[in-house]
C-alpha cells in the first residue's frame, strides 16, 4: 500500500536565534543555484557534474520503495520505458518499506554527495526538506505541465520559486461509510456523529460508530487535518486559533462525550482502522484509498463491506472539506549527471498510459488528472468516487522543517485525545514552538 510517512515521532523546542541569518544565507544560496539553472549554466551549478545528454547510452538509478504488487508494477513500468528508450537502462535501488528508514537512507546518500540515485520516490512531505540543503534538482528547467496534476499534490514540490517534485501517485484520506447503514452520506460533522450513534443503536453488532487513527505518530496529524485542522504553511505562525480548537474539541468529544469512537482510537494506526472497517464493526472509518480496493476485492473477500462501501471527503465544520494529502512524488538528485535521461523517465512514469497501468496493477491512484478515464473506471469503478476526495486533497504544511513540526502536532493531538490536556491548553503550549520552528526554516 502507499506510503505517506509515519516517520516524525516527536518534538523539541527549536532554535530561532539564527533564523534571520540563516534565511538570508539560504535565500542567497538557493537564488544563486536557481538562477544558474535558469540561465542554462548547467555545467557546474550547485556542484553538478558534466551532464550526459538524453540520447547517449547510459544507466540511471531509480530509488523506490514498494513490495508486492507495487514492486511488480514498478518493474513492469521500467521494462516498458527501456523498450521505448533503447539507450537508457534503469536500475532499481530498493529503499526500505518503512518510511522513516527510507528517509534516513536517502539523507545519508545526500549528505555523502552521491550522484546516484538519479530519480527518487519521495513521500509528499519530504521534497522541500531535501530541497532546502540543495540536494534536489530544480526541474522547472524541463518546463513540466503543472496543471496536469491535482493542485494539492503539485504544491508539495514547490519551494522558493523552483519545482523540486513531480507527483507520481496521489493518496488522500477520506471518510468511508457503509451504504447499507447510512442511507444518505452526511454533509456536516454533527451529522456524522448523529448517524454513527443512530447506526450503533439500530445494530448492536457494531462496536463503534467511527474509527480513525489517533496514535502518537504521523497519522494523528493527517486525521487532525482531515477533521478540519488548519495547518497550512501560512497558518504556522499561529496555530492557536478558534478553528483548530474546535477541531481538537470535536476529536475529543467523538471519543469522550459522544462515545462514537472508542477510547482505543488514541492508540490506533491505519491498520487498526482497516481491520475495524473490514470486519464490519463500524459504519464510519477514516482511511486512505487502498481500503476501497480491499473492500471491493474478492480475494480475500470482506462480505461485511463488499458492495456496501462509500467514500467521501470528511465533512468539515468550516464547510470546505480538506482531505489530508499523502502519496508519492518523484524527485531528482541535484548531483545526478543524467538529469536529461532522468527527466525522460519521470515523464514516462507520469504519462496517462503508465499511470493507468499502475492504478490497475497496484491500486495506486493516478496523480495525473487526465488518467481518470473510462479505461480506468472499467477495471476499477471506485476511482470515479475517489476523484472527488482527491480534488479536496490538502497538503500538510509544505516546509523544510515539517518533520519537526509534525512531532509537535503529534504530541498535541495525543495529549488531547488521552485527556491529559484540554484543547486550548494543548494549543497554547504547541503554538509558540511551531512558530519558532517555522521561523528557523526561513518563513
Amino acid at each position, binding site marked *: 500500500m502507499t506510503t505517506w510517512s509515519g*516517520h*516524525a*515521532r*516527536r*518534538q*523539541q*523546542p527549536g*532554535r530561532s536565534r*539564527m533564523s534571520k541569518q*540563516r534565511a538570508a*544565507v*539560504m535565500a542567497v*544560496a538557493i537564488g544563486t543555484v536557481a538562477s544558474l539553472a535558469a540561465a542554462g549554466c548547467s555545467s557546474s551549478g550547485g556542484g553538478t557534474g558534466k551532464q550526459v545528454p538524453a540520447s547517449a547510452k547510459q544507466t540511471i538509478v531509480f530509488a523506490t520503495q514498494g513490495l508486492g504488487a507495487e514492486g511488480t508494477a514498478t518493474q513492469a513500468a521500467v521494462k516498458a520505458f527501456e523498450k521505448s528508450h533503447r539507450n537508457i537502462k534503469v536500475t532499481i535501488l530498493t529503499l526500505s518499506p518503512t518510511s*522513516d528508514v527510507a528517509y*534516513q537512507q536517502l*539523507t545519508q546518500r*545526500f*549528505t555523502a554527495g552521491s550522484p546516484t540515485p538519479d530519480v527518487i520516490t519521495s513521500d509528499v512531505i519530504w521534497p522541500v*526538506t*531535501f530541497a*532546502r*540543503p*540543495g*540536494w534536489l534538482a530544480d526541474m522547472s528547467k524541463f518546463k513540466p505541465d503543472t496543471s496536469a496534476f491535482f493542485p494539492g499534490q503539485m504544491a508539495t514540490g514547490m519551494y522558493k520559486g523552483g519545482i523540486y517534485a513531480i507527483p507520481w501517485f496521489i493518496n488522500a484520506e477520506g471518510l468511508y461509510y457503509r451504504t447499507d447503514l447510512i442511507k444518505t452520506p452526511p454533509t456536516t460533522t454533527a451529522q456524522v456523529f448523529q448517524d454513527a450513534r443512530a447506526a450503533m443503536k439500530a445494530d448492536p453488532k457494531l*462496536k463503534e460508530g467511527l474509527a480513525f487513527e489517533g*496514535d*502518537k*505518530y504521523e497519522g494523528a496529524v493527517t486525521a487532525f487535518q482531515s477533521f478540519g485542522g488548519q495547518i497550512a504553511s501560512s497558518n504556522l505562525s499561529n496555530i492557536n486559533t478558534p478553528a483548530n480548537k474546535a477541531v481538537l474539541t470535536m476529536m475529543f468529544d467523538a471519543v469522550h462525550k459522544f462515545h462514537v469512537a*472508542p*477510547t*482505543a482510537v*488514541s*492508540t490506533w494506526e491505519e491498520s*487498526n482502522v482497516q*481491520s*475495524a472497517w473490514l470486519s464490519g464493526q463500524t459504519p464510519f472509518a477514516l482511511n486512505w484509498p487502498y481500503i476501497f480496493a480491499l473492500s471491493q476485492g474478492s480475494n480475500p473477500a470482506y462480505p461485511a463491506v463488499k458492495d456496501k462501501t462509500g467514500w467521501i471527503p470528511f465533512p468539515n465544520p468550516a464547510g470546505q472539506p480538506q482531505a489530508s494529502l499523502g502519496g508519492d512524488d518523484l524527485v531528482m538528485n541535484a548531483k545526478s549527471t543524467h538529469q536529461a535521461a532522468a527527466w525522460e523517465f519521470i515523464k514516462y512514469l507520469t504519462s496517462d498510459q503508465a499511470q493507468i497501468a499502475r492504478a490497475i496493477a497496484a491500486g495506486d491512484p493516478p496523480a495525473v488528472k487526465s488518467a481518470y478515464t473510462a479505461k480506468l473506471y472499467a477495471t476499477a469503478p471506485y476511482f470515479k468516487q475517489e476523484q472527488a476526495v482527491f480534488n479536496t486533497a490538502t497538503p500538510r504544511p509544505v516546509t*523544510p522543517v515539517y*518533520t*519537526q513540526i509534525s*512531532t509537535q502536532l*503529534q*504530541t498535541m493531538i*495525543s*495529549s488531547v*485525545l*488521552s*485527556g*491529559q*490536556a484540554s484543547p486550548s491548553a494543548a494549543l497554547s503550549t504547541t503554538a509558540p514552538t511551531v512558530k519558532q520552528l517555522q521561523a528557523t526554516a526561513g518563513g
Partner: protein
Amino acid sequence: MATRASQGGRQYSLVGRDRRFGYLLAAPAIVMLLAITAYPLVYNVWNSFQHNVINSGLPPTFAGGANYQRIFTDNQFLPALAHTAGFTVVSVAVETVVGLALALALNRKFRGRGLVRAAVFIPWAVPTVVSAQLWKSMFDPQNGWVNYVLTALHLPLAHTTWLASSWTAWAAILAADAWRNTPFVAIVLLAGLQVIPGDIYEAARIDGAGAWQTFTRLTLPLLRPALMVALIFRTLSSFLIFDVVYAMTGGGPGTSTNVLSYLNWQAFFVYSDYGYGGAISVVLVVIALVIAAAYVRVFRSEQVL
C-alpha cells in the same frame, strides 16, 4: 655504555622483528576497531560542540557548550531522565526478583526440565521490536488478549485503554520489557546456581538449617557474582531502553513515556540535529559509565566483606 647500547640494539632488532610482525598481523583488526569504535566516538564528541543540522544546507559552526546548555534548559531532557531512572529501578527490581525465582525453580530436578528451560528462554530470542509490537496489539482494548483475559476472569481494569494514559502505558511497557528480559536474568542466575557445589547444602541440612536460612545464608551470598553480572547488564540496558517505547507509545500519550534514548534518536533522525543529538549521546555515555563504576565499587567492597 657503547657496548650495552649496541647489544641492546641487536636484541631489539631480533625481538623487534617478531614484534613488528605481530603488530602487522594485528593491524587490520586494530584499524577496524579504531574505525568502528574510536572514530565515531571522537567524531560524536566533536559534533556535540558544533551547531550541525545536516539538512539545513549550512556548514557546521562551533557552538561551544550551547548544546549541553540546551540539554539542561529545555523542558525535555530532565523529565525524560526522571522517566528513565524510574523505569530502570522498577524494571530491574521486577526482572531480578522474577528471574531469581525462575532460576531457582529451573535448578530443581523435575520431569521435562529441558523442555521447560527452553520454553522459558524463548522470549529472550525474540527481537525486541517484534515483541513490543506484539505486546502493543495484545494491549489493544478491543481486540487484544490482555483485556479479553481480564474480562473472562471478571477482573478489574478489563476496560482499560492501556496505552492512553501515563501509568497504564508505563505498566504495558514494563510488561513487554520484563517479558523479554526476565529470561536473561534467569539464564545468568541459573548458571550461577549450577556452580554452587551440592555438598555445602548437605552440610547445612545436617546442621539443621531451614529452607529460608539456606537461601539467605548460602544461596544468595554464593550467587552474588552472577547476580552482579545480571544487574549490571540489566541496569545499563534498561537505562538505554528504546525499542519498546519506540514501538509501543512513541513517547506518548503526550510526552509521558519519553525516555532518554528516544529523545536522542529524535534529535538525530527527526531533527537531523547532530550537534544536539551528539550532546545527548555524550551525557548518556557518562551516566552509563557512572552506573557501571558504581556497581563495580559495590561489587568489590562486598567481596572484601
